[in-house]
């Protein structure tokens, strides 16, 4: 199973990014093998729709669970459509801390906030 963490740089010491669609990178961790990969977020410079594009990127890397900060309504809808579960990164500062917290079962799954979508 693969999880992703929004990250400013590479590796477990990197700070987490507090944005999803415009996160610098995604750290993708295969929990079965503990292989760690950093993927540059190609969506971050999009004029609009960065959230949706970033979800597409995670889907391409077969991410099952995305650990994220606040999600916009479009990113939320796209996550659902790609059947990627979303988990809140809470206030943890580094990628390593987020990973440890996730493994210890401290992070909660985000349930869809009804009524936030526009139009």
């Amino acid at each position, binding site marked *: 199973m693969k999880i992703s963490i929004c990250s400013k740089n590479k590796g477990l010491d990197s700070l987490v990014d507090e944005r999803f669609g415009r996160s610098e990178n995604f750290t993708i961790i295969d929990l079965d093998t503990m292989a760690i990969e950093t993927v540059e977020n190609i969506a971050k410079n999009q004029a609009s729709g960065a959230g*949706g594009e970033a979800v597409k990127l995670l889907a391409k890397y077969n991410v099952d669970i995305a650990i994220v900060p606040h999600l916009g309504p*479009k990113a939320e809808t796209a996550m659902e*459509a790609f059947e990627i579960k979303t988990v809140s990164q809470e206030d943890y500062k580094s990628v390593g801390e987020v990973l440890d917290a996730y493994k210890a079962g401290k992070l909660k799954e985000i349930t869809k906030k009804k009524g936030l979508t526009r139009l």
Partner: protein
Amino acid sequence: MRIAVLSGKGGTGKTTITSNFAVNIKNSISIDSDVEEPNLHIFMDMKDPTSEPVYTLYPTINKDLCTLCGKCGDFCNYNAIIPAKNQVVIFNESCHDCGGCKLVCPTGAITYEKREVGKIFKGTTKYNTELYYGLLNIGEMSGVKIINQLKKYSELNEETVFIDSPPGTSCATVAAVEDVDYAIIVSEPTPFGVSDMKMVVEMLREMEIPFGLIINKAGLGDDEIYDYCKDEDIEILGEVLFDKKIAELYAGGKIFSDSLPQYKNFFSDIYKNIRKKRRSL
């Protein structure tokens, strides 16, 4: 001749200047393309306008034909259409209605539906001139569709069309000034007015549209605007003074040259000057 009036900064007097031209230049029509906050029709006192809706198209998917190949999603520049696991997600409001997704779809699964993005109002003003303005629906992201439709009306008039443009230098402003014969920048002599005007100058030069400047509220602020115009060789077409009388008329929704006749020639002289320049180009 189509003349756009723009400013960069909001509140410098675009609509004030446009309305004064519109009432002093015979046989002219005016268009308010600031579709997020139109108010030229208030100055011009437009009676009983008629309205027509403006639509934009967005894709819908025939699930029986769609193979989730992903081509539409790869093509879309705005991530308005995203093929996912067992469905295609469409964000209607992100769609720019380019028609590309239908062209690249190999199975013909995409068709389009229309959505109203706003309205165009047309009518006659108290001054017996024609006026058109657009109004963007709440929550819509782009007024470009409405502006382009509005500008079709400017092709009906062979004399003079004044186009009151939106502030800023984004897509809406570009759409408003595209293909005009001349642009009048209205700026105020403050650091803010000059800073935003510089972006407009850069945009107009890029678009190769000839332009000149009217300084509104002259006497306010500092001299930076004069130095800037000298350095950049920008023609100052005229100056409207920072005058309490003008401010009072504005606050009452009046067109100031109606009450201050010394300004009537001011606007017709600037217009003649622009016409002469156009002929010599």
